[in-house]
């Protein structure tokens, strides 16, 4: 995956410093002003312990006042009921399986590629901020800054150290 980023950055003429590593072990030479994790990628961390470690490492890697931002979907049982086991052609042919007991979604592509996500509730995210010593700055229900409401489908968090 990093190769893709490297190639695209070169093509775009921008410089990215790419590091391969485990985000649970994040350590920076210089504290960051902003750490962000888009595309629901934190959901690839399956356990509370994994996320707590990540949040703690993020907090330790931020400057005072630095921000941590991420987004994640909010589990919707109606969506789950609709999609569970259904084959979908777009954007890549795949099937989604929900494992509610494990708060997990398994996405299996027709060619065997797979990805799993473990969803979290708002309180879990807030708990992570709490244990990591971060403060919630904003919780949006979308990327346009709309408020998070009961039927929001996306958590968009901004936290501060």
């Amino acid at each position: 995956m990093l190769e893709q980023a490297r190639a695209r950055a070169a093509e775009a003429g921008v410089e990215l410093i790419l590091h391969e590593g485990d985000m649970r072990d994040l350590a920076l030479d210089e504290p960051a002003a902003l750490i962000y994790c888009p595309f629901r990628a934190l959901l690839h961390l399956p356990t509370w312990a994994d996320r707590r470690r990540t949040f703690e490492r993020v907090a330790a890697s931020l400057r005072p006042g630095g921000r941590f931002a991420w987004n994640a979907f909010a589990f919707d049982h109606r969506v789950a009921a609709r999609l569970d086991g259904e084959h979908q052609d777009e954007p890549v042919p795949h099937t989604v399986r929900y494992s509610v007991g494990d708060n997990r979604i398994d996405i299996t592509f027709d060619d065997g590629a797979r990805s799993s996500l473990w969803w979290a509730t708002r309180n879990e995210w807030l708990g992570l901020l709490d244990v990591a010593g971060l403060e919630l700055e904003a919780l949006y229900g979308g990327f346009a800054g709309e408020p998070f409401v009961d039927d929001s489908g996306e958590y968009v968090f901004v936290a501060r150290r």
Partner: protein
Amino acid sequence: MRLSTTAYEELMPCRAEEPRVPGEIDHEAEQRLRGRTAVLDHLPDLAFDSDRHALCRNDFELLEAVALKESFDLAGLDAVAEAEPAGHLVLEDAVLEEPPQPIGVEEVMSLVGQRDRPLEEREARHGRDEDMTARRHDAGQLSRGGYPLRLLGEMVEGAQAKGGVETVGFPSREIARVGLDDLGDSVLGVCGVHLLAGDRQELGREVRQGHPMATFRERYRVATGAASDVEDDRVASQMPFNGCQGDRVLHGPVRGPFEALPLALPERGVVGLYERSVAHSHEAILHVGAIRLSIRLEAAAVIGFGRSMGTMSWNEAYASHYDEWSAHMTADVPFYVELARKADGPLVELAIGNGRVAIPVARATG
């Protein structure tokens, strides 16, 4: 046999840095072990002959340390000289969609021997122009090195496709005797060995994080037919960890790898690789796997855990779909760009993917 769970860091004040002499048996240490009076000094390798239920090679100080620490009664085990492995080994890797068919020991040994190739040669061999795990290994940042599981998986696949690979002299000190007969997908893994030869802090954390035990119980049953020397209910009672079960990753720590050690000494078994699937980065997972593999190969103590495909965060094949899969998501880019513009200092994106967000951020912030 009484089992206990303990923190293993304290078991490991240091580790042996000098390579052991293959085949050498420290009889004096063995006697001390039998008397269970020795003091832990350093960490030699540990090997196990499951055919004979016998421990073989190396200073027994480690073993006795483990035995003492774990109240582990090894009195019935006999030290034996190293010998050629018997049976079959299966390298199991999440890169492989299904457990591979067993391959011959010679093939595995050949694969093991390849670990010592120079990085350039490995890259040329596997078509990788960059491999961070291998580089870190060569830079001495990984304990004892090893290939990423991805490469190992490819090697296994290649060996299978070709019906075998050239047999080379195998470093028997790296793989001890593990009696393996006719098993398919059972796994005897290595989590305990982490703490014998690896980066103790990191690997100890891995163990505590709770994943290595995986599907041991299931696998063990498959492997031994309701267990050769330990009944399943004993397995359950003696493995009170909250790690992995079945195909689920559960929360909570594994309470110590050696609680499973006796169970990993069946009459027969299969040594395999397990790829944890808990990190955001497949590469990071491979990094962990590489450590495990290398340690297993070098120490060859056996502990049970298995692969858990159902809990994969994502597999390598997913990367090939990332562009298409993420193409629809554009709304987040302005949001993160705006945050980046407000930031006065370094910017860090976790899980950068293909650079979909990072590149616009870099453009916007110069």
